[in-house]
């Protein structure tokens, strides 16, 4: 069996009185791409936020390898090896492309590789090199998403978390985005991917979970879920 990297068990999260997750369990194996899909408001972002420590888990356990993440602040969780590209990308819009990349290597263990990481990012995204001294906020939507991902991999994370990377991008750029995700995967990066673009996401994913109003409604390999008539009826019809 593959190496279990992330294990979320029985996780419940609430915003005040409003409960967003009800006993959710998911897992991500080393070296795989795992997709979380589901409708608006299903709790996908909440699940990611709980993993990276932005929202508190009410109940349940989150483990990265042997480290429990529950109750730790986001900066500690980042240092343990989780790089979370949030919904909306979380770029520092008034700082330059290069500065954003540099901050991706802020963690002490990543700092010695800062130069090397930037060279790698430029090789992967030549566009970012051309725009190095431009403000991040002046980039196009696609370029911004590339920058957010490039910044996240600067720390050489154990797990890369992407929240709707294709949001707001044109179909062509969406395709580039999924190619990029596969490139990173082939370089050995483990990826947890949240997407509304269910078809594309399940196509690249080794394994997938379907969230429905805060609970895991279905799970299986990407291929099985794609072929599942229930999913085709419930989601593809609406979203494609």
């Amino acid at each position, binding site marked *: 069996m593959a190496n279990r990297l992330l294990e979320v068990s029985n996780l419940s999260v609430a915003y005040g009185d409003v409960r967003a997750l009800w006993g959710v369990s998911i897992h991500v194996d080393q070296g795989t791409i795992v997709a979380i899909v589901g409708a608006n408001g299903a709790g996908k972002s909440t699940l990611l936020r709980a993993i990276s420590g932005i929202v508190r888990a009410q109940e349940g356990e989150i483990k990265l390898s042997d480290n429990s993440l529950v109750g730790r*602040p986001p900066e500690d969780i980042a240092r343990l090896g989780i790089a979370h590209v949030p919904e909306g990308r979380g770029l520092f819009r008034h700082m330059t492309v290069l500065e954003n990349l540099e901050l991706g290597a802020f963690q002490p263990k990543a700092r010695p590789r800062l130069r090397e990481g930037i060279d790698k990012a430029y090789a992967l995204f030549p566009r970012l090199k051309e725009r190095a001294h431009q403000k991040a906020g002046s980039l196009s939507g696609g370029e911004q998403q590339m920058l957010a991902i490039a910044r996240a991999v600067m720390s050489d994370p154990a797990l890369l978390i992407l929240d709707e990377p294709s949001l707001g991008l044109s179909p062509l750029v969406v395709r580039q985005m999924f190619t990029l995700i596969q490139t990173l995967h082939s370089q050995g990066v483990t990826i947890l991917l949240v997407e509304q673009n269910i078809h594309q996401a399940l196509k690249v994913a080794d394994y997938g979970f379907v969230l429905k109003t805060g609970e895991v409604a279905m799970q299986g390999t990407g291929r099985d879920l794609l072929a599942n008539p229930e999913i085709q009826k419930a989601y593809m019809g609406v979203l494609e």
Partner: protein
Amino acid sequence: MTEIPSLQVLLQLTVNGILGGAMYGVAAVGLSLIFGTMRLIFLAQGAMIILAAYFVRALFQGLGIDPFLSLPIVITVGAGVGWLIYQGLFRRAAAMEDRNVSLLIAVGLMFLVQNLMTVIWGGNTAGVVTSYTASGIGAFGIRMSFTRSIGFLIAIAGTALVMLFLKKTLVGKAVRAASEDMTSAALLGISPHRVNAIAFSIGLALAGAAGVAVATTFPFNPFAGFVFSLKALVALAIGGIGNVAGALAGGIILGLIEAYVQYFISGGWTNAFGYGVFLLVLMLKPEGLFSRPYKKA
């Protein structure tokens, strides 16, 4: 005030305004940094400046250390005190959604420091008089006080160093990043507490620098700090929150306004004009004169 002033008088007023305004500027730079990461108006900044001035006086009178030479000591102590103030007083409140708690702590600290200074040094006006206090530099019929000129240089150098730190070092960039988006910064492993503590350290190191400048140029008393905080706030509003160079420029503009108003209208009106400009700027250009406009949403 009825005469038409000579060019020389105008130049002299301008010089006075710039030299005096730079003091407000450094105070404002400190406020700007702390506001940047914590979204807190640190109203005790002025009181801390006066406290630093008393410290400079104590070093001078007690140990015979020249006020300008005491600068490294005062800055270092200021940075340490800033770190302690954050860790001791603000750390818990900084994690809370409600910024009012932090603001109340700042106000409480201001009153505490004011009262401690009154108890220790008395409420009378104090000053530091050295052999060079009265000396000046003259050129083209304009006279610049020596101490004010040095104070001005301290303000410029302090601001320049802070800007270099923010632009050139990775930690400085992390401070800017956290000022822009604390959650995204934390997701990169940047600790909010560390960034806040750094902002406080630098803010109070600048209060130390301003304290040296104040001690050598103005007579001061324990209650002068609050007005200083207000003027720094005006400078901050003019310059634009989160803009270090703008904060210094805002201070200098306020100094110029005060110098002109004092000469052409009367000394009694200077503060009224200063606060008037404050409100006017906030009404017409709330992002400050030198900053990018706020984005809606």
